[in-house]
């Protein structure tokens, strides 16, 4: 094995935060590919440019995704990274593992790959970092025979991901782990065989804390919420106060809807005006908890800034029940994809298509009524579309009003 001197990246072995360079070197001790990856990286640091080529199309039989092809321009200098493809393994819901399962994953990877991983990728996959084209089929056979499948890539459903939710959090409004698993299973075909105009991501958070950043990073963000009052345990409120919490400053005055009141004794909430933002609940988890019906808000459209600026997901379905077998959610997803399919140009994310075609076209296709909950504020300009049916409806309403003598506006 070549021995690289790496004065620049060695600098990144210093300091308290765990060092990825140390990790790379650890793998490099026994792995040629990892060893060349170290040398290759030092080269980048010294010249301040990268040497990876545009990805090539590589993969496993019958799948259109799951592997990111990667080749170096410096394949001769660093043969271990001439090919350096990543394999995306679909992680289990909420990233729970047993040591047994992970050891198995490591064993296979040491055998066929670089011994380097990303635990996890930004989308959520367990990313195996660097292998050669001819190892891919074997790697897939090894993993899949043990119950692990590939994640998504390309113009496909991407690996869904969720927050830790009911497994270890008191605030989950639905079972994020189970929904994540169920949707991943339901849409295996869409995940493995790119047939969409572009990528599509699901992320599921159990509440407005959004610990999986769904509103910013998923085409479909499924965020838990409730319909009902926040129950207040006044004894626990008193406890927080006695432990030094300034309830007015920290809670009441920070409530965005100003629907709380605390007189030093009793904490009152005008629940009708609460927007369920979670601030008070997170800060007084022993004293406050939601009650009533549980479900989720469905938001659509987030994406990164390329090329006209990032999008955050938009509220589309203010409230939906999320209970096994999740038929309502799955039906909705199918309708969403159908409309997207009918309307997208290549490389158009769903948010971009909604922006192009208008929210109305989308809502009508997925059979959701217009609701003020979907918007932050109404339109400002007077340039509106009206269908013939709209006009008929307006006129009918006016006729009705004439009859009853009462306006309905």
């Amino acid at each position, binding site marked *: 094995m070549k021995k690289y001197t790496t004065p620049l990246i060695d600098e990144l072995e210093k300091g308290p935060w765990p060092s990825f360079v140390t990790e790379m070197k650890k793998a490099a001790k026994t792995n040629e590919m990892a060893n060349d990856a170290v040398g290759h990286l030092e080269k980048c640091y010294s010249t301040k440019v990268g040497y990876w080529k545009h990805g090539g199309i590589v993969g496993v039989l019958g799948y259109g995704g799951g592997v990111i092809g990667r080749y170096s321009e410096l394949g001769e200098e660093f043969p271990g990274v001439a090919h350096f493809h990543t394999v995306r393994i679909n992680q289990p819901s909420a990233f729970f593992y047993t040591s047994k399962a992970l050891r198995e994953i490591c064993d296979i990877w040491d055998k066929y790959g670089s011994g380097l991983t990303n635990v996890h990728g930004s989308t959520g996959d367990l990313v195996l970092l660097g292998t050669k084209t001819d190892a891919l089929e074997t790697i897939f056979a090894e993993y899949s025979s043990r119950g692990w499948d590939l994640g998504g890539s390309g113009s496909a459903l991407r690996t869904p991901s969720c927050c830790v939710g009911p497994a270890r959090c008191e605030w989950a409004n639905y079972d994020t782990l189970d929904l994540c698993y169920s949707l991943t299973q339901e849409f295996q075909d869409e995940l493995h065989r790119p047939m969409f105009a572009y990528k599509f991501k699901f992320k599921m958070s159990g509440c*407005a804390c959004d610990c999986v950043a769904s*509103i910013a990073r998923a085409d479909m963000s499924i*965020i838990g*919420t409730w*319909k009902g009052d926040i129950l207040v345990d006044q004894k626990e409120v008193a406890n927080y106060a006695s432990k030094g919490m300034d309830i007015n400053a920290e809670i009441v005055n920070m409530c*965005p*809807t*100003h629907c709380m009141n605390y007189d030093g004794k009793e904490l009152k909430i005008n629940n*009708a*005006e*609460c*927007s*369920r*933002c979670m601030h008070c609940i997170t800060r007084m988890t022993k004293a406050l908890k939601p009650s009533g019906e549980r479900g989720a*808000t469905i*938001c659509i459209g987030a994406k990164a800034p390329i090329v006209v*600026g990032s*999008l*955050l*997901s*938009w*509220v589309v379905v*203010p*409230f939906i029940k999320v209970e096994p077998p999740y038929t309502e959610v799955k039906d909705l997803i199918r309708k969403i994809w159908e409309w997207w399919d009918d309307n997208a140009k290549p490389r158009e994310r769903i948010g971009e298509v909604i*922006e192009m075609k*208008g*929210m*109305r076209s989308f*809502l009508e296709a997925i059979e959701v009524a*217009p*609701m*003020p*909950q*979907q*918007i*932050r*504020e*109404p*339109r*400002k*300009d*007077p*340039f*509106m*579309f*009206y269908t013939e049916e*709209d*006009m008929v409806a*307006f*006129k009918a309403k*006016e006729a009705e*009003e004439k009859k009853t003598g009462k*306006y*309905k*506006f």
Partner: protein
Amino acid sequence: MAIPQRKTDIGPPKYDQFLPPVIKKNYGKWKYHEVINHGTMVHVGESGDKLWTVRVASPRILATATIREHCDIAEKYCDGFFRYTTRNNVEFLVSDESKLEPLKKDLTARGFKMGGIGAAITNVVHTQGWVHCHSACTDASGLVKAMMDELMPYFESKDLPNKVRLAVACCVNMCGAVHCSDIAVVAVHTKVPTVAHENFKNMCELPTVIGSCPTRAISPDPANKSVKINAEKCMYCGNCFTVCPPISIKDPERDGVAIVVGGKVNSLRSNPKFSKLVIPYISNEPPRWPKAVAAIKHIVEVYAANARKHERIGEWIERIGWERFFSLTGIDFTFQSIDDFTFMRDTMRTSSTFKW
């Protein structure tokens, strides 16, 4: 009578010749004012001088006879000095307190209405309508008259949480302050324009007409040496009609009015705000537009009952949320209220927090 010698580029007369002595003396040195009632306020100078203002409603369309009546009154009580406001009311300026009550009595006797000062509804900024503009799809003055007849108590005496600024525009050109009003009416077309093909090539330029359409609904129609309009894409802005007379967009049964709310101009407390669409369509109902008037009155009343002191309509709505505005007023939420144009991105909700 010979026509006098014209002059050009002289500009308006200098304002100072129209200022009453009390203003000249206290110019830039006013200390404070007090609103006495919706019709009267007094400004006090650092000098101790006082100036009473009596504000009088105006229909804005004035016959010279009425202007002369204003002059008569001003001569009697104000040494001939008076002014109009930026919202087209008349203001009589009284520096001699003893003339204040007689002035008010006289105004009342002549049928003039005093009001609009303070937390009130004042005159409605509006436009030409059928009285003078070719572009109008309703009559602005008529709507204003019908509205203000209903809202008169808020002009003359009843208090509101804060000023409520109303406006009416007779087409989407919006020659007024509709786009930043507490409540406003904008007249809208709702039918795809038709093209008189036979006149097109003589009167219009093809590229100009095609370029005029913001939604690219217009394409060449070579067979007719004219253009055709894609009905799916047309949002009735009328811009094509403005640039090309053979295009016609007016339709008596389909033209109507929309109601927008929540705008403001000043920067007190919160930034200036655009008005937002809440009722997309009400049929054009001259001579008194009963439904539009009822809608406006209803919104004013819900605001009066729910807002905090000093909150403008838009501030109140932003505090309670638009979803609550719709539920409190009972106004139907329609697809038209969802922006599908310039500001779509910034107006959709990007958070699971809202009220049921």
